[in-house]
C-alpha cells in the first residue's frame, strides 16, 4: 500500500544531509513551509544551498535558517525584505553566497530541472549584468541567453490538502514555486493542513500529482510568518 505520510516535520527532514541543495517553496510568507524549515533548523544540517524566491523575514522560518548559519549559498530572485537584516549581514560578511536569478528564469530553471531539460534559451536578462558569463545565441534575429535546469536533493513545500498518494492542492497564491520545485527535487516533502484518503481530491483539480511527492506531513494549524514577525518571535 502506498502511504506517503510521515509522523511529523522532524521525521520528514531527518535525512537532509550537510551540503544538500534544498528548494524551499513560498513567495514571501505565502506558501512558506515554516514548520518544515524549523524542523530542519532543529535537525542541524549545514552547508546547505537553498533555492528560494526570497530570504525570509524577521528571524523565523527561512530567515532563522539563514541566521543559524546553515546556508552557504542562496539561489534567489529577491533576497531583500523590509523587515529582515539576516541575509544582508550574511551577504556583506561573505558567509552566504548569492546567485541572483530573475524570478521567471528561476521558475523556468526549476521546471526544466524537473522536466529533464538540461538547458534552454530565454530572452530574460539579455544585455544586463545578469547575462555576464552566460552564453548568448540568436534565434530568428533576437538574442537569447542559455540557462541551465536546476535540480535539488530535497524540496520543502506547503500545500492545503494532500492524499496519502502525495497528490497535492494548494491555497491561492501560496501555490507559487511549489509545483515546479516538487518536480525538480529527488525528495519532495510537503506539509499540508489535512491529509485525505485517495479519492478525496478531485482528479481534475490536482495540481501536483503524487509522483512528484515522496513525503506528506500533516500540520493542521501552520504558523503565519507575518504574525510571528509582528510578535517579535525568533527561532529556535
Amino acid at each position, binding site marked *: 500500500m502506498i502511504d506517503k505520510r510521515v509522523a511529523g516535520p522532524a521525521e520528514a527532514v531527518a535525512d537532509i544531509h550537510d551540503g544538500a541543495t534544498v528548494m524551499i517553496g513560498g*513567495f*514571501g*510568507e*505565502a*506558501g512558506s513551509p515554516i514548520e518544515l524549515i524549523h524542523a530542519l533548523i532543529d535537525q542541524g544540517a549545514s552547508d546547505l544551498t537553498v533555492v528560494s*524566491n526570497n530570504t525570509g523575514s524577521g528571524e523565523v522560518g527561512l530567515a532563522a535558517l539563514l541566521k543559524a548559519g546553515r546556508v552557504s549559498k542562496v539561489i534567489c*530572485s*529577491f*533576497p*531583500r525584505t523590509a523587515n529582515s537584516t539576516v*541575509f*544582508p549581514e550574511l*551577504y*556583506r560578511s561573505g558567509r552566504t553566497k*548569492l546567485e*541572483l*536569478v*530573475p*524570478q*521567471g*528564469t*528561476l*521558475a*523556468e530553471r*526549476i*521546471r526544466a530541472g524537473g522536466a529533464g531539460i538540461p538547458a534552454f534559451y*530565454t*530572452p*530574460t*536578462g*539579455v*544585455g*544586463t*549584468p*545578469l547575462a555576464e558569463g552566460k552564453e548568448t545565441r540568436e534565434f530568428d534575429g533576437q538574442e537569447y541567453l542559455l540557462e541551465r535546469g536546476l535540480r535539488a536533493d530535497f524540496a520543502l513545500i506547503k500545500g492545503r490538502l494532500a492524499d496519502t498518494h502525495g497528490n497535492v492542492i*494548494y*491555497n*491561492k*497564491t*501560496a*501555490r*507559487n*514555486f*511549489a*509545483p*515546479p520545485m516538487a518536480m525538480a527535487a529527488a525528495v519532495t516533502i510537503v506539509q499540508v493542513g489535512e491529509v485525505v484518503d485517495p479519492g478525496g481530491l478531485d482528479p481534475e483539480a490536482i*495540481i501536483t500529482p503524487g509522483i512528484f511527492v515522496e513525503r506528506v506531513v500533516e500540520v493542521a494549524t501552520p504558523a*503565519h*510568518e*507575518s504574525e510571528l514577525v509582528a510578535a517579535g518571535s525568533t527561532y529556535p
Partner: protein
Amino acid sequence: MSQTQINGRTREEMAQRLAQDIADGSYVNLGIGIPELIAKFVPEGREVIYHTENGLLGMGPSPIKGEGDPELINAGKRQVTALPGAAFFHHADSFAMIRGGHLDLSVLGALQVSAEGDLANWSTGEPDAIPAVGGAMDLVAGVKKVYVITQHCTKEGEPKLVERCTYPLTGRRVVDRVYTDLAVIDITPDGFRLVELSPGVDFETVQERTGATLLPADGATR
C-alpha cells in the same frame, strides 16, 4: 542644473493619465509603487484583468480589513482579493504568460530610461547593496508593451531620461513609453519623442530636464 520649480502632475495624476491609455479587455501587470495607483483610475466601462506574477490573474483590490488571507497576496507581498473569473497558477506558468508575450502591458518604475528604450530599475550598482531583481527582467523581456511611470528627475534634479543608462540595465530596448510628472514621451527609432505635455508645462522645460534630445510631438510645429 539650476531649475525653477515646476508643478507637473502629482503621482496620482500621473497614474490617472496613464490609466486613460489602457484598452478595454487588456491583461496588465502593474509594478510596485506608482504603478499600483493606476487601477483605480481606469475609465468606467473598461474591463482590465490584472496579473500578479506570483500566480493570479483577476486580481482585485485590497481586502476589507480583517478579511484578507496571508496566502492571497500580490507581487509586493500585500494582501489582495480575487475577482470572479480569477485563476490561480504556479510560478512557471505565470512567467510563461509573461515571457510568452501573453500580457498586453507592463507598467514599471524606473531609475533611468535611455533614448533607445533601455531600462534601469533594479539596482543602483552600489557595491554594498543587496542585489535583488525579482520579476522585472522577465516583464520587460516578455510583455507586449512596457510603460514606465516615474518622476521626470531624481530628487537631486538629475534627469532620469538619458542618452545612455549609467545604472545596471533591467533590459535593452524594452520601453515603449514614459509617463512623468512633466510629460508623456514615446521611445521611437529616432529617440525620445514628446506625446504630450502636462498641463502648464512647456516643451523647453521638459527638454531642459531630459538628458537627451527630445523630439517634438508628431505633427507639431515649433
